[in-house]
């Protein structure tokens, strides 16, 4: 079930809100858990069992960790088993076909592709479940003795299938004891509506352009069209994913949960390292805290630091999908982050801000070619077209058409990817806090309400008008 679907907006969400807010406190978590399982089962009922298995397994590991934490040998084996269990499950469902395909290709075998379907959001809920056990192991979070509360943490529908990856320690207290307030609820509405608008109005429009361009043979594209396509895709993936994160954070807030931010205007970064501190923050911090730092981080000399970075970025690529293009995409970032650590970072800091910004955007946009292309051949050909190395046209009628037809939405999306709209809104609504001028303050408040409800109405109009609306991040 997509947040941007009529069945979620006009069926699931109002029913859950109603049940939740009329229920007594002791029943609220149960309502959320049952709703979350229903939400997950809606798309693929049989995969609920896999998620439940993951929950029960990690619930048991939590107890084992708590019990054996003082026994070095047992705790080590417990953690190894926990990793094997979780990564094994992820490996079977997400990477088995990729593994078989490559073994066949390298060794000339003809092993059958197991063709195991990918459960929605398995990467997200597996990482969340692992986070629970690791946090308990590190004493960063309390042991959760109530299986249903742990199940709620792993399966809570706002962040279940597309993140953000909520660390156990972030919500451990709120699962047990939280307070819903009108201010939080309204703030949740605002955040949800902004996310819905990002997804429906900006991401889908940009996505249409990207899909049209990438559906063509790279050799048929003009250089301008190839740039339009990848810029559109860069905007699509940002608004799609950050929009989804906004909706998740907003929904969480309605129910009294406070998730951490997942995006912070990544396209204004002035270095690749900064980009990754602003992009998919929950994944970056997960890998930092659970992989990079345990491997030694940057405290064991430059070569081990580079080794650790290679491991982290290889895993980042693999996490995004079972394909060599994703692995290349991860390593591509790893290389730039290592270069920045070696010398490039100092250069970028010394460059004029606009140049460092342009350079970073260029690197990021090129990286998205690998992310979007179905295979290396297409990615390579596409890059050749982008740099005019294909011997074809620089500009053609199709590029002209996309500029005229989608130019305004692309420009709007580019502006919206910066903090400018937020600053503008803050400027216009600054009088909302001028309590000594009540009319002005009330007008500003009303403007905010109208602004949000207008975006909500337009977003619904896009929801109703669309019939095909998959989230990009669903299959990761």
């Amino acid at each position, binding site marked *: 079930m997509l947040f941007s679907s009529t069945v979620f907006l006009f069926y699931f969400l109002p029913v859950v809100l109603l049940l939740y807010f009329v229920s007594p406190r002791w029943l609220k978590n149960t309502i959320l858990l049952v709703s979350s399982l229903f939400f997950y089962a809606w798309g693929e009922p049989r995969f609920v069992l896999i998620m439940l298995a993951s929950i029960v397994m990690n619930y048991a590991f939590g107890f084992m960790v708590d019990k054996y934490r003082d026994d070095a040998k047992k705790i080590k084996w417990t953690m190894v088993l926990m990793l094997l269990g979780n990564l094994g499950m992820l490996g079977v469902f997400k990477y088995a076909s990729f593994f078989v395909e490559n073994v066949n290709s390298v060794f000339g075998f003809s092993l059958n592709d197991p063709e195991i379907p990918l459960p929605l959001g398995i990467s997200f809920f597996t990482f969340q479940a692992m986070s629970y056990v690791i946090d308990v192991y590190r004493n960063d979070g309390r042991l959760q003795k109530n299986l249903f509360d742990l199940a709620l943490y792993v399966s809570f529908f706002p962040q279940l299938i597309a993140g953000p990856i909520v660390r156990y320690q972030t919500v451990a207290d709120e699962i047990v004891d939280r307070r819903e307030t009108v201010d939080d609820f309204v703030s949740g509405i605002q955040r949800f509506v902004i996310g819905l608008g990002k997804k429906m109005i900006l991401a889908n429009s940009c996505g249409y352009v990207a899909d049209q361009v990438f559906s063509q043979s790279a050799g048929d594209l003009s250089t301008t069209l190839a740039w339009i396509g990848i810029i559109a895709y860069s905007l699509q993936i940002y608004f799609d994913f950050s929009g989804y994160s906004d909706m998740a954070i907003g929904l969480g807030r309605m129910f009294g949960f406070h998730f951490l931010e997942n995006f912070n205007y990544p396209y204004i970064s002035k270095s690749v390292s900064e980009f990754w501190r602003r992009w998919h923050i929950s994944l970056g911090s997960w890998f930092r805290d659970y992989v990079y730092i345990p491997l030694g981080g940057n405290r064991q000399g430059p070569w081990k630091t580079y080794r650790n970075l290679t491991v982290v970025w290889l895993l980042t690529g693999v996490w995004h999908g079972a394909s060599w293009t994703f692995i290349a995409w991860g390593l591509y970032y790893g290389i730039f982050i290592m270069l920045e650590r070696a010398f490039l970072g100092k250069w970028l800091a010394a460059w004029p801000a606009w140049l460092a910004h342009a350079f970073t955007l260029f690197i990021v946009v090129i990286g998205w070619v690998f992310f979007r292309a179905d295979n290396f051949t297409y990615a390579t050909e596409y890059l050749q077209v982008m740099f005019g190395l294909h011997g074809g046209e620089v500009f053609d009628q199709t590029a002209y058409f996309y500029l005229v037809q989608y130019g305004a939405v692309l420009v709007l999306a580019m502006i919206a990817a910066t903090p400018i709209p937020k600053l503008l809104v803050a400027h216009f609504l600054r009088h909302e806090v001028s309590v000594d001028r009540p009319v002005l*303050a009330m007008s500003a408040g*009303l403007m905010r309400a109208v602004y949000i409800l207008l975006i909500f109405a337009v977003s619904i109009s896009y929801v109703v008008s669309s019939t095909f609306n998959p989230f990009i991040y669903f299959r990761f």
Partner: protein
Amino acid sequence: MIQQTKSEQVRSKERRISWVVNSIMLIGFLGTLFYGLAVYAFGTEQARSDSEGRMLAQRPEPTVETIMDGSYMEGVEASANDQVFERYLWIETQAWVQRNVLQQQMNNGVISIDEFLYSPDPVASDYSSLGVFFKKFKQEMDEAEIPSYFASAPSKPVYATRQGIFPAYIESADAQNRGQLHERLKDNEIPLIDLEETLGDKTAKEIYFKTDHHWRPEGAFLAYGQIMDRLREQFPDAPVLTAEQMETKTVDGPFYGSHAREISMPYVESADTFTYLEPKDGFTTTVCRNGDDCGHPVLDKDVLKNASKFTNYYNIFMGDNYAQAKITQKNPKNDYHLLVLKDSYANPVLGYLGESFGTVSALDVRYFDDYDVSIADYAKENDVDAVLFVHNDRIRGLGSMYQRGL
């Protein structure tokens, strides 16, 4: 003390403002969600959408099997989409934003230029699939000694291309595709009746609806004249309707055609006036639909009854599209039997042809998927004297359908 009172006053004002703003947000947001829920759960389901020209999905009945295989959920999602409250208002709102805020000139592949709606086709085609069909078809017709003809009308985008109506950024391969279609006919020696010869120098208003992809009955009547000029070489004594014998009748109210429904109303600058031609003495034929459903007129005026904003008045011609239709003269003027292979574009022409031939049979190529048909067998079994294709040039998708008619 004074300071404390002032601070309380400030907080009180803040709370009041916050209360008003929060209330508006809550009412707006939750009101919309719960109204949507109430309409879906308790409202009467709509059966059909005229604006979309299709039946709407209904709430499915759950079974263990459909729940487990997910088809129940798909059914609920489809019905939730189709039955959402004020569905068309939302769709129009989206189109309005798209046109006026995001400045998108096209919607769903349709563009509005000087009140006329066009749907240019950017995809070039060599019509090879139709070429395969033409070759086999010609061979079968030659063996049966039945002459065949292909009447090819220029589609609206071809007309717009010839007249230089499209702006430079619009990609249209329609004129090029038309050339390819005619090449395939020439390759296979199927005589072409190029209706552009008659229609090409008319104004768009004379030939085409502004908001529909079909031609006007007036344009179809001009085409009928050219078709008969050619067919009378084989059927010299077949009578031909003249313009003087016809009168134009106008339907009250606006007509919003297929393109208007596709592009949606915010892009539509003006409605069409729907007209149809009828012999002053009336049509002298009767129609059998799909074999045994007989006694229908070629002009089905029931379509005009209970009309709504998006009633498809074009269905007055032949009363809609049928896999097979047979038009017979009540008092046969001759025993000629013409077989027309067609899509909806031919429907107005069928009525006129019915006045010229004792019998006109029509097979709609789009229904070849649904039943076994062999054009050659049909022609032989029914003593057909000639086969006439009537299409515009926008038929690159019909090749595989026609092949099923071999």
